[in-house]
């Protein structure tokens, strides 16, 4: 498989074309904008927690526009992160980052990565890392109480 097919895997193209959880959330517990001004990727993320003691992430949704990598990353993240605690979200935020910058091998974490493993090919494209990580940085900011727009440029 060539590098382009590694990058634009079926699952990424599918989530780009039909993004999941792609809508505004009324009564969100947290809401934050992610914007990369140089390339124009621009999203708003919404988070709702459940009523449990640990406040698990009940739902993440998003709206906005950007390239296939950023949109698929947002879509896959929004589905993946559902039901996770804040600590778990933090763990996956760090793991995802390490995978797309090539610091860790996706093969070593294949089970816990699930669909996130599709982004392993991004590490071959340093210019596109910021696209894949924008949704994660924004979600991380929303969860940790940031209130200014997040950028990964």
């Amino acid at each position, binding site marked *: 498989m*060539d*590098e*382009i*097919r590694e*990058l*634009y895997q079926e699952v990424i*193209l599918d989530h780009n*074309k039909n993004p999941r959880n792609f809508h505004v959330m009324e009564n969100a517990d947290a809401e934050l904008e992610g914007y990369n001004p*140089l*390339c*124009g*990727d*621009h999203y708003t993320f919404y988070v709702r927690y459940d009523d449990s003691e640990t406040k698990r992430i009940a739902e993440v949704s998003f709206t906005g*526009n*950007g*390239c*296939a*990598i950023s949109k698929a990353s947002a879509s896959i993240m929004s589905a993946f992160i559902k039901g996770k605690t804040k600590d778990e979200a933090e763990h996956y935020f760090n793991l995802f980052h390490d995978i797309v910058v090539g610091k860790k091998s996706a093969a070593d974490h294949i089970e816990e990565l699930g669909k996130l493993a599709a982004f392993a090919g991004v590490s071959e*494209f340093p*210019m*596109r890392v910021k*696209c894949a990580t924008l949704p994660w940085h924004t979600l991380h900011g929303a969860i940790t109480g940031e209130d200014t727009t997040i950028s990964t440029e």
Partner: protein
Amino acid sequence: MAREIMESVHATSHVQRSFDPVTVRADFPALHQDVHGKPLVYLDTAASSQKPNAVIDAMTDFYRNDYSNVHRGVHLLSQRATDLYEGARSAVRRFINARNDREIVFTRGTTEAINLVSRSYGRDHIKEGDEIIISAMEHHANIVPWQMIRDMTGANLRIIPMNDDGELLIDEYKKLFNDRTKMVAVVHVSNALGTINPVKEMIEIAHSWDVPVLVDGAQSTPHMSIDVQDLDCDFFAFSAHKMYGPTGIGVLYGKEELLEILPPYQGGGDMILSVTFEKTLYNEIPNKFEAGTPNIAGAVGLKAAIDYLSQFDLDEIARYESELLQSATERVKEFTGLTVVGNAAQKASVLSFLLCAVHPHDIGTIFDQKGVAIRAGHHCAQPVMQRFSIPATARASFAMYNTTDDVDRLIDAIEYVLEVFS
């Protein structure tokens, strides 16, 4: 008069070489390399051009043999460096047909040239309630400096609108003038759309209101011959790096009588005649605007680029590039789902497009894997993107060293994008 005759003899005698893109390509070493295992196709000249050996060698030779600081030095190397630096100024003057060398100010590039005019002219000549006219297709470099002056003075910006093809509406432009209009700043060739604006006509209209005009020539200088006297522009700004010269140097042309009345832009060495703690006497133009040690090697490189271009008939290059752009445009339009952004009747170099719902950054990445270098994004012209309600475009831009083979590779790359995203 004698000088004018000399000039015209000089200008015609410059054409020494008939234009042939294949032999031109051989002069540009960076074009002959593989990218991701494919021969490079460079379609990003609108962002910056590649450099011919003549430019690279001139700069290297200068650093190896003649380098020193310019002006005031009494030693031989300083004299040589000064001669080369001032020789470059004369070369620029001939290249754009300015009246004299005093009208040529070296800057870091187009952006600094525009900032110089906006700051210096704005400081004394733009007041609260005054108006500055710019167009809807300006590069940020010809928007932001004027916004800064607007915010400092309380002046207003008026915007010349454009139609869906990316052409300025000249009738609307005429209506923008009034007694408060103090400056027109307009791009000659749009970097995002490729539109060639009718600047000569626009200057005539502005002058009928006694309003000076600055022309942003960053994208026009590499693609057409420029005659500032024929245009009758008051200021003309351009960069060396887009016309096969080095980065970090550009030119502000200004009519002598205007440059004389503008205050200096920056203070420092070289721009003074004498300094005491009480009072400083400024140097004459153009030195008044060149504070500090200038980009001497850059000027040497710019002169080499001008000499390189001047071997050819620039009109012949313009015709060739125009045919290449036209044929590329016709061929890309055959793809269903491809939209060309910018369909002006008069265009140069730039082919901006959208491809189905594929984001331009994805197009750029996939093209790159095929060895085809284009630019994707807003091209530092966000208001243009807003005008067409799009976040970005993919932009292929053509130069004298591009060929129909490059267009074939562009077409193959588009096919590959469609295949990946099918």
